[in-house]
Structures are given as structure tokens and as C-alpha cells.
């Protein structure tokens, strides 16, 4: 279990030397208890005290940086099982897998795809994160060649997958200084793997289907001096993954089994189940996910799911209030008022676009609340509508004085007319009906 600040304080030297950067040992103890400081900052602790403190004061899941340079990214340092408890901080990296049996131009093409492909949604560019090179040929030479090809094509985070340490060693000649991830250490080879990881500064994946064994292996690797670890729970089925990944996460964040406090690695390249594994890895605590090159459709869906799950659930995504144009609206185009909750906005926008009627969307600032909640809480009020009309100069945009409001805002229609002077038309409650509504009701 986690130590409380006072328990930690008892172990500290109580010199108040300020060498850790904190004014007193007590404030340092409080930071350690919150997982916000590292025991190594204190120069006066002996090894024994450090090991006692280290296990309980570091973040429950170790923070790792994969790769170097512009495309490097962080994983781990997560604190919760449910995103609604706080948020998930570090989204999983998706690695496209190349086999060293493929032709070099094919390997280069997949690497270039990871380097270049961007899918833009809600103003954010979504991308894959790296390349995983797998030794399918059995030859160390072919593996090294494939890694060299990837390296020459792009500077991307890498995972090297091979059974033999000699094979990995041959490839590390080409990329050893770029903090690649090597896969995988097991009970039989972990000492050699640790030596290799130490020599090249690699991150190391430890692999075992049994969580108890996985924890022991992680502990043994840490004892060998390799602490930048990822855990591969070696799932055969989606059920294996959800059970093992959820269990590992729960035991890590509660510090019940601190040796499971490392990011999770998932091999999702499992034929027709790949999309299922990838989706599950995204929602259930994966940190590095390897899959075969995705179809454009699976790429869009999976990257969108990742964006959704790693959106902070405490912040409603808001649109900037103001006027948005659909098509090329003229001065006589209808004006549709709605709230700045992004879900409402995008849903309405979608249906308006498919109606093919040019129009203006007039977005008022309800602080990201939906129509229903904004009306109920009084954030959506007649004065807000009046002030927004002035502020954004709606009078100059259209020649008429009619405004369509959401069906759920119908109770406000009279008051809006009174204070704004605009005629209010109550639209449908469901955005899906807006096309039909406009075709039938919007007559000049």
C-alpha cells in the first residue's frame, strides 16, 4: 500500500537541506506521497531507504518515453481505471508491423506511410506512431537489413521483435541509440535481454501470459537494472486481454502489486480479429499496440476511437460561438441557432450538409452544455440570444429577421421574440429531422 506523507517523512533525513529543491523534508515527503517527486532527488538516503520509498512513491504506472526526437511520445503515468474518475493521460502508440521477409521497397513504403499519413478530425491531426519490425525470416542478417531500411526511411519510434538476442543485437547496430523497444524477455532469456537493453539503452518488453509470472519477471528485470519496461500479457483471445489488462491496471494503480506498474504492450496483429484487439487495446489500457498495416477505413475508425477515449471527459468539447456557414448561404438563407456543445454542433452540421440547403449556423455560448441541460440550467436564455445576435452582427448577415431554435428550447420562444425583436420559429427536437423541416417550413 501507498505510504502516507508522515510515514515517508520518518524515513527522510529531516535535515531540511533544500538540496532536493524543496524547502523542507516534510514538503518533499508530501510530494513523494502524491507521486510527484522522485526519491533520487534526496542525496542522503541509503539504498535500503530508497528501495522502501521507491516502490511506493513513484507514479503507480511508470512513465516511459518511446523513441527520440519529434515523433517520440510518452506512455504510462496513469492513475485511474475509469476515465470519468479523472482522465487518461497518455494515449497508446500504434505501431504498424513489417516482416523482414517483405521486399525492401514494401518495408520502406509502410514506414513512409507511418511518417506521412495524417487524418484530421476536429482540428487535430491523428497519426500512427511507429514501426514494429518482426523477425519472421529467422535470419539475423535479413532482420538487420529490414531495420536498416526502416531507419533510412524515417526517424520513427521502433519496436524490434525477435526471439534471439543475437538477432536483436545485429539490428541494434543500426538503431541502438534511438531508444527502440525490444521484444521480448521471458523467464529463459531475461538476463541476456536485460544486458542488451542496458548496453543500448532500449526499452524492454517482458512477456508472460500469467500476471504473477509477469510481475516476477518485471521485478527480476528491474533488479538487473532495467526499469524501462513494458508488459506483454500474451493474450490469445480478446477475453485474455481484457481480463489481464484490467487486472494489471487495477493492481498497479491501487499499488497492490507494484511490479505490474508498467505500460501494457499489445500484439494486435491477429488476422481477422485485429480490429477487435486494436479497439480493445485503445479502450482498455494498452500503451503500445502493434498491428499489420490497417485499411484506410480501419485506420480512421481506430484513430477516432483513440481520440475519443483520450479526450478529457471533464471538459465538454466546445465550439467557438459565432456564425458558421453551410454551403454558400445568401442573404435570405435560414438561420439555425444552437448551443456550442461540440456534439450538438457536429450532429446538426452533418444533417444540414446532407439537406443541401445553404444556411447559417448561429452558435451561442452555453459553456459546452447541450440544449436540454442549457435550457434547464438557465444558461440558454433570451438575453444570451439577444446579446449574441448583437455581438456577432447577425443583422448584417441576413436580410430577414427570423431565427430557428432547437425544439427543446421551445419554452423560450416567446421571450426571445420579446427581447430580440426577431421572429422565432421552433425547429425539430431531433437534428435528424432538420432537412425535412427546412424543406417544408422554410418559405420566404
Amino acid at each position: 500500500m501507498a505510504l502516507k506523507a508522515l510515514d515517508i517523512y520518518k524515513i527522510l533525513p529531516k535535515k531540511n537541506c533544500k538540496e532536493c529543491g524543496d524547502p523542507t523534508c516534510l514538503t518533499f515527503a508530501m510530494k513523494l506521497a502524491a507521486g510527484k517527486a522522485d526519491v533520487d532527488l534526496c542525496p542522503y538516503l541509503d539504498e535500503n531507504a530508497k528501495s522502501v520509498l521507491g516502490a511506493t512513491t513513484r507514479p503507480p504506472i511508470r512513465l516511459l518515453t518511446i523513441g527520440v526526437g519529434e515523433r517520440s511520445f510518452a506512455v504510462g503515468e496513469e492513475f485511474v481505471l475509469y476515465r470519468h474518475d479523472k482522465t487518461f493521460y497518455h494515449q497508446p502508440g500504434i505501431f504498424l508491423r513489417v516482416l523482414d521477409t517483405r521486399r525492401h521497397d514494401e518495408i520502406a513504403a509502410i514506414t513512409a506511410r507511418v511518417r506521412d499519413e495524417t487524418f484530421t478530425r476536429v482540428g487535430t491531426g491523428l497519426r500512427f506512431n511507429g514501426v514494429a519490425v518482426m523477425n519472421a525470416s529467422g535470419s539475423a542478417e535479413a532482420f538487420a537489413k529490414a531495420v536498416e531500411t526502416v531507419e533510412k526511411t524515417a526517424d520513427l519510434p521502433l519496436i524490434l521483435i525477435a526471439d534471439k538476442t543475437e538477432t536483436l543485437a545485429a539490428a541494434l547496430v543500426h538503431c541502438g541509440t534511438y531508444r527502440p523497444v525490444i521484444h521480448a524477455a521471458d523467464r529463459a532469456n531475461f538476463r541476456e535481454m536485460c544486458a542488451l537493453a542496458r548496453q543500448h539503452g532500449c526499452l524492454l518488453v517482458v512477456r508472460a501470459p500469467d500476471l504473477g509470472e509477469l510481475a516476477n519477471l518485471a521485478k527480476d528485470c528491474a533488479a538487473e537494472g532495467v526499469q524501462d519496461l513494458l508488459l506483454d500479457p500474451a493474450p490469445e483471445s480478446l477475453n485474455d486481454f481484457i481480463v489481464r489488462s484490467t487486472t494489471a491496471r487495477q493492481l498497479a494503480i491501487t499499488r497492490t502489486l507494484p511490479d505490474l506498474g508498467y505500460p501494457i504492450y499489445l500484439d494486435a496483429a491477429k488476422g481477422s480479429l485485429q480490429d477487435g484487439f486494436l479497439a480493445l487495446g485503445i479502450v482498455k489500457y494498452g500503451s503500445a499496440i502493434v498491428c499489420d498495416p490497417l485499411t484506410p477505413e480501419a485506420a480512421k475508425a481506430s484513430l477516432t476511437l483513440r481520440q475519443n477515449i483520450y479526450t478529457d471527459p471533464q471538459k465538454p468539447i466546445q465550439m467557438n460561438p459565432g456564425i458558421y456557414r453551410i454551403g454558400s448561404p445568401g442573404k435570405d438563407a435560414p438561420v439555425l441557432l444552437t448551443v456550442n456543445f461540440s456534439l450538438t454542433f457536429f450532429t446538426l452540421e452533418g444533417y444540414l450538409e446532407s439537406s443541401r440547403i445553404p444556411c447559417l449556423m448561429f452558435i451561442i455560448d452555453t459553456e459546452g452544455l447541450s440544449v436540454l441541460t442549457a435550457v434547464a440550467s438557465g444558461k440558454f436564455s433570451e438575453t444570451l440570444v439577444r446579446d449574441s445576435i448583437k455581438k456577432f452582427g447577425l443583422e448584417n448577415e441576413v436580410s430577414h429577421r427570423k431565427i430557428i431554435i432547437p425544439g427543446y428550447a421551445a419554452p423560450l420562444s416567446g421571450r426571445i421574440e420579446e427581447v430580440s425583436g426577431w421572429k422565432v420559429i421552433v425547429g425539430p427536437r431531433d437534428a435528424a429531422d432538420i432537412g425535412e423541416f427546412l424543406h417544408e417550413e422554410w418559405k420566404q
Partner: protein
Amino acid sequence: MMEVSANFDWTANIRKVVIGATKNEGGTRTSSFRIGGGTTLPFLEKTPQPPLIAFELCDTPQYWSPIIRNFCGDVVNSPAEWAKKAGSSYGADLIRLYLTSTRQRNFSDFGGIKKTVESLLSSTGLPLIIEGSNEPKIDSEVFLKCGEAGQGEKLLLGTAEAGRYRSIAAAALAYNHSLIAQSPIDINLAKQLNILLRETGVPPDHIVIDPYTGTLGYGFEYSYSAMERIRFSALKGDLDLAMPMICSAIDSLSVKEVRDAEPAAQDALAVQWEFYTGIAASVAGAEIVCVRHPQSIMKLKEAFRSLAQINTAGGE
């Protein structure tokens, strides 16, 4: 070897709801389902069956996505034939019929609705979910006709909302059906509606929660957490939330990504959108996942089988 498993201290279970009735159970369905019954997070325990997949169809295809009309062909013009095909060829577990005909202006053909429901009951042996009208004025008549047509078949009727639940509750009570209670992505509103239904006399084991599913990229981030919170509260003992959930991301086929795709890629994109939404929803607690693209069914089915595989936590 040490025993490694997660500890949650749950105190309650999800209620079971029965959908469909076989001959032995007083109906004519070839299968019936008991959903719910979970005692922990989804898939962390032995699950008697994978999540169910409902194929959604309607009785007036002009209201349906052109992607589906093109893919399914002429069969969309006969809801009975379409439902039959959904079971025999697409592989669905359930049929969800939307009575879109009731959306026409001044709709009054209530006898026609009854005939449509009866035609599905004879064309397919799968249990049915029936979606009634969108118009409060005709709710009462529509739901009574649906309820009556499906007497003894343990239908799942949809959809009750906070502002309008009396007609559907009356029909469910009169003919012993269950109903879908939908609230807009909010655990408190979901609870409130269930309390209203309880006070109306609807037994809690006749309610399936629809937390409203915004599709991938369009609100799914909210729906996912709303579902997780509902499941969490239920397991912690909130009896007014201890119902199984249904998820239907009906906007999947009309999102910009799918709409703007090249015609050749539209089917694949629609399927991926439904698949990724559906599998994530099942992990958050949905026990019925609804889809509209036939190809989504087998893809989800394969994943659900792997997800529900009998297994125990980590470390034996």
C-alpha cells in the same frame, strides 16, 4: 504460483431481462434471451452468452440510409422479408423494427402497423424489438397496436423518454413486454427516468437502459463514460440503474467521414464505424448492440465470441 486477480468489492448485480418467448415460454420465437445478470465489469467473469447483435430495419425505406438501401437491395421494400434475411443470411440475434411509417404526416393507419408486426413475427423466429412512433399524439395508439400484435412474444418496446413514457409503459404493462428507457447521455437522467417508470408500475426487470450512443467521433466519448458510470453505480448497489443496456449508434451511417467517402469505400467505412463503436460500447456495458449494415454483424459476432470466451483472471 500466486493468485493474481483484481478486487472490486461490488455489492450488487445487474438485473436479468427476458427478451422473446419460445413455444415453451408461451410465444412463437425460435430463441429467447436473458440479458443482464452480471456481477462485475463486463467480460471479467464467465459470461453465459456474448453480447447480442440486433439488426435495425424499418417499414418505409426512404427514411433509411442510401448505403443500406443499396447494399441490401429490393428486400428493403418488405420488412418481413428483410427481417427473415437478417436472421438467415446476415446472422443477427435480434430484429429491431422501426415503424418509420408513423412519421408521415397525419398518420392514421394503425391497423397497418399491427399487420407489419405480425408479418415479422411469422417471417422470422428471432425475438423482436419494436420502435414505435416519434409523435406523442399517436403514441398511445401505436404502442397498443404493437403490444397487442406481439402478445405472448415478450417484445422489447422502444423508446420511453422522460417527457413521454406513459403510453409505452401502458402497452408494456398490458401485454407483458419490456421497454427501452432512453436518456440523453447522463447517468442522473437515466436514473430519474427509471424511477418514473417504477412509479408507473413497470417492473424493473422489464427495463433496458439506452444511455443514448453518440457514434464514434460524435459524442461517443461521452456515451462511453456514461455507460461505464451506469454499470459502476449498478454494481455498487444503485437498484434504479441495475438494468442491462442497449446501444444503437444510429448516426454511424450519416457522419461526415462515411458520407464523404468514395462510393467504393462507403460500405467498409460504415462497417468499421459500427464495429469500433459497437465493440467499445460492449466493453462499457452494452448487452445489445444495434447495427444497420449487414456486414457489421458477422464481424462483431466474431469479436464478441472472443471477448466473452470463458476465462478467469490472470494467474492460475
